């Protein structure tokens, strides 16, 4: 599990770096043109943190080790990303880590669903946003719901993360016609309609990478 988590973070960092310019371009349209740069800086810091860390303590139970790693990744985002996305993604990771730590006995698939739900709760609580406000939540909430359904249907972690990923990218596309009522895009009022939300896009990207990793 810890290996899957680490390879998710490393692969995500690579993908974020590749997509940084296009994420920033989306943010130029309805924001201030820094979302890709911000996340690229944060995930670069996570990779540096991973490279610096010593070997995992074998005595530590796997769920605790994974929770610990995810928490440190969240803290790194909070300390390096800035803007709105830093606290939001950082808190999401930290809350997800908390869920992992509690659900020590859960299957990988169930642990993921619980962590994703906790992450959504963290973002919604901090950002005071709900579904339909043209934010990252519009990718993440449908993803969590789809993952839960797949889990209830007996799906393994590959199936559950795949369900989450496709729901996230559908949710991402669904932000295009939305009127933004949170974040910078809300300043544009009607002019925010017709543009895809950068945060929803990065959220779908992160879940897409997770599904790829889980499929291996």
């Amino acid at each position: 599990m810890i290996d899957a988590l680490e390879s998710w973070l490393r692969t995500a960092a690579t993908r974020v770096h590749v997509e940084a310019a296009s994420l920033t371009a989306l943010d130029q349209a309805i924001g201030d043109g820094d979302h890709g740069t911000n996340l690229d800086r944060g995930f670069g810091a996570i990779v540096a943190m991973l490279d610096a860390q010593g070997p995992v303590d074998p005595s530590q139970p796997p769920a605790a080790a994974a929770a610990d790693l995810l928490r440190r990744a969240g803290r790194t985002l909070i300390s390096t990303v800035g803007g709105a996305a830093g606290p939001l993604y950082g808190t999401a990771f930290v809350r997800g880590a908390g869920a992992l730590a509690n659900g020590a006995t859960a299957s990988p698939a169930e642990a993921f669903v619980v962590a994703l739900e906790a992450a959504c709760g963290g973002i919604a609580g901090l950002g005071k946003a709900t579904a339909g406000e043209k934010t990252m939540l519009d990718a993440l909430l449908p993803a969590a719901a789809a993952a839960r359904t797949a889990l209830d249907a007996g799906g393994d972690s590959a199936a559950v993360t795949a369900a989450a990923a496709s729901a996230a990218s559908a949710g991402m596309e669904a932000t295009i016609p939305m009127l933004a009522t949170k974040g910078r895009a809300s300043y544009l009022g009607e002019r925010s309609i017709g543009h895809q939300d950068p945060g929803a896009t990065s959220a779908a990207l992160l879940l897409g990478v997770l599904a790829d990793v889980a499929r291996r």
Partner: protein
Amino acid sequence: MATNAPSRMKKLINQVESIVPESLAGLAAAHPEVVKIDAANNVVLRAGGPRRGKVALVSGGGSGHEPLHGGFVGLGMLDAACAGNVFTSPVPDQMEAATRAVDGGAGVLHIVKNYTGDVLNFQMAADLVAGDIEVASVVTNDDVAVQDSLYTAGRRGVGGTVLVEKIAGAHGEAGGSLADVTATAVKVNARARSMGLALTSCIVPAAGTPTFELGDDEVEVGIGIHGEPGRRREKLAPVDDLAEWLVEPIVSDLGLTRGDSVLAFVNGMGGSPLIELYVAFNSVAKILAGRGISISRSLVGSYITSLEMAGFSVTLLKLDDDLVRWWDAPVHTAALRWGV
């Protein structure tokens, strides 16, 4: 087609990554008697601080708005300013470091411009020092271009922030308590309104291209200070008209009437030269005179900017005797100085 601009990013920089630290180093090198830099955290600190028993004022935000905030650190204004990357709010670690560095035992006031990122990061920083240091926060939201409604993140903090920092800073310098200084900051924010427009976009260094495209004969009305597009686009018009577009919503939102006395602040967005800003101030003065509103204090210059954007904003602050007294009080910062 006669163009007076590079078609790619042309800036006085070494590398994109080093703009903020090098600019802060330049600020400290130019004003060693006023500020020092915590280079590890990109924090500008008042020279000779912390001051025991004095309420400390901390602000910060994305870079690209210079002289805001680092240029306002010094006697009678801020004790520290946190510099984020260009247009990206700083991280909680920076605000925590600044807050701990300036605490003089009388509490620390965080002056936060109302943007989701700034609000969330300052809030996390306050949590990090909770218990150790008494922290109060004031969120500035003076931009009338944004409706303050359920359908937005609320009005943005723009030009009024400069006035909050000057006036609350004066009250802090005079020994006001955390509650008093916070009340003064809240009062200034409540009596200040702003609106701006752009003649050009600006280029975020890391992006390398303009944040928005604007036609040769268009102005973007109701912009913020991050190069974000505004509320609407209009055809370029004489500055008397442009000024009217900005002053009218401010006057009506503030409910200013004949006989009221204001501080009029005409701010350049970074690329508009002073000759134009004074022409714009003249337009604003004519409009206010026509409405029987008297300008008893004024400020003209580029004090809260969007990189090299051309354009201007207008901020009006409804004055009373206390506010005038705090405004006139001595200030010694890199960007504002009088009485000392």
